[in-house]
C-alpha cells in the first residue's frame, strides 16, 4: 500500500469520525510516513511497519469510544445490500440477454447520448416550423393561414419523427452488430454517421417541397458525398453551428431586455426632469442592465471561443 492508498483507506474507514478530527489523526500518520521517507525508508515499508491497519483503525475508533462493529454496521449493511441487488440484477440480465452488466450500463448511457443529440437536433426543426407557421399566417390571413401553418408544423414534425426513429434504429442495429463482433467504436461516430445519412435522405424529401430549400439541399448532398476523411470536421461544424444558433436564441431575450431597460431609464430621466426622482427604480434598472449585459457578453464569449476552437 502506498501513501495515497493508505490515506484513502483511512478516510473511508474512519468516515464516522468528524472531518477535523479525522484529518488530525491522518496527518499524524502522514507526518510519520514523511519522516520515514526522509530517513530513506520507502512509503510502503513505513506503512507496513504500522502493522495490521484494520487493527489500528479499531484502536482509533476505540479512542473515540466508538464500537468498531457499530461504526461499520450501517456501512456494511448498505454495502451488502447494494451487492445483493447488483448480483440479482446481473443474474436477471444474464438470464435474458447473456450480456454483462457493464455493457448494459454502457448501452443505457449510449441511448441517453443519442437522445440528447436528437433533442438538440430538434431545435432547428422547431425554429423552421415556427417561422414557417408565422409566415403562412401573416401572408394568408388567419383562416387559411392557420390551416397551412398547422399542416406545416405537422409536416416538419413528421420529418423529425422519421429522422428520430431512423437514427435510433440505425444506431441501435449498428451497436448490436458491433457487439456481436466484439468491436467497439465511439457512439458519436455512429450518431454522426446516421445523422449525415438521414440529412441527405431528408434533403431528397425536401427537394419535392419548395425551391427555397434548394440551397440547403445542395449543401447537405455535398456533405453526404464528401469523403469519410472529412466527415468528422463537417459533423463538428454542424454541431458548432447548432450550438451557435442556440446561443443566439438564449442571448436574444436579454438583448431585448436591455433595450427595454434603456427605454425605462429614459422614461425615469424624463420624470426626473419633471421633478420626480425615484432612486430605487434607477438602481434596479441600472443593476438589471448590467446583469443582462454581463449575461450577453458571457454568451458571446462562449460562442466566440467555441468558434475559434472549431
Amino acid at each position, binding site marked *: 500500500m502506498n501513501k495515497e492508498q493508505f490515506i484513502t483507506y483511512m478516510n473511508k474507514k474512519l468516515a464516522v469520525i468528524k472531518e477535523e478530527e479525522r484529518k488530525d*489523526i491522518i*496527518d*499524524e*500518520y502522514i*507526518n*510519520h510516513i*514523511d*519522516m520515514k521517507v*526522509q530517513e530513506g525508508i520507502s512509503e510502503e515499508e513505513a506503512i507496513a*511497519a*504500522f*502493522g*495490521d*491497519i484494520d*487493527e*489500528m483503525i479499531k*484502536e*482509533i475508533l*476505540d*479512542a*473515540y469510544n466508538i464500537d468498531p462493529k457499530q461504526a461499520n454496521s450501517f456501512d456494511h449493511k448498505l454495502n451488502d445490500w447494494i451487492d445483493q441487488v447488483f448480483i440479482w440484477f446481473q443474474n436477471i440480465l444474464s438470464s435474458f440477454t447473456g450480456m454483462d452488466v457493464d455493457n448494459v450500463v454502457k448501452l443505457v448511457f449510449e441511448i441517453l447520448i443519442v437522445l440528447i443529440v436528437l433533442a438538440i437536433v430538434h431545435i432547428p426543426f422547431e425554429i423552421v416550423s415556427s417561422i414557417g407557421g408565422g409566415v403562412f399566417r401573416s401572408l394568408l390571413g388567419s383562416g387559411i393561414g392557420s390551416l397551412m401553418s398547422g399542416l406545416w408544423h405537422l409536416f416538419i414534425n413528421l420529418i423529425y419523427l422519421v429522422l428520430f426513429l431512423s437514427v435510433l434504429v440505425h444506431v441501435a442495429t449498428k451497436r448490436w452488430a458491433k457487439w456481436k463482433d466484439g468491436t467497439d467504436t465511439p457512439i458519436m461516430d455512429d450518431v454522426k454517421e446516421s445523422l449525415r445519412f438521414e440529412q441527405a435522405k431528408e434533403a431528397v424529401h425536401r427537394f419535392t417541397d419548395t425551391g427555397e430549400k434548394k440551397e440547403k439541399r445542395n449543401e447537405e448532398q455535398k456533405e453526404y458525398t464528401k469523403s469519410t476523411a472529412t466527415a468528422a470536421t463537417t459533423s463538428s461544424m454542424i454541431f458548432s453551428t447548432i450550438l451557435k444558433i442556440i446561443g443566439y436564441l438564449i442571448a436574444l431575450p436579454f438583448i431585448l431586455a436591455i433595450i427595454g431597460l434603456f427605454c425605462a431609464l429614459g422614461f425615469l430621466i424624463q420624470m426626473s426632469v419633471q421633478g420626480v426622482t425615484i432612486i430605487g427604480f434607477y438602481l434596479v434598472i441600472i443593476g438589471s442592465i448590467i446583469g443582462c449585459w454581463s449575461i450577453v457578453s458571457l454568451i458571446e464569449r462562449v460562442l466566440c471561443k467555441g468558434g475559434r476552437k472549431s
Partner: protein
Amino acid sequence: MNTQFKKGVLELIVLLSVNKKDMYGYELVNEVSKVIDVNEGTIYPLLKRLTNEHYFETYLEESKEGPPRKYYRLTKSGREQKQLLLKEWNTFHEQVNAFIKESDCNE
C-alpha cells in the same frame, strides 16, 4: 513479547516519556520503540485516546525540516494518571514476582 503485556504497559511508557519532556508523535514512537517492540501504528491511536481523556494537551511548533509538529504535553490529570499507573504497575510487578518466587520454591 506477548502483545497483551505490551498493550497494558504501553500507556505507562508513553506517559513517562512525555513526562520527561514534551514530544511530537514521531519522536514518541521512536522513544517507545526503544523500550518495547511495538507496531508503530498503534501508538497514534493511544495518543489520541490520552488526548481525548485530557491526559495530554497538544500544541503546534514550527520545525526546520518540514511542516509544524504537534507536540504532546502532560496535563495535571495526566500526571496523576501516570502516578496511578506507576503505582499499579509496581504493585502488580511485586505481586507477580513474589508469586513467581513462591512457585519456584515449590518446584
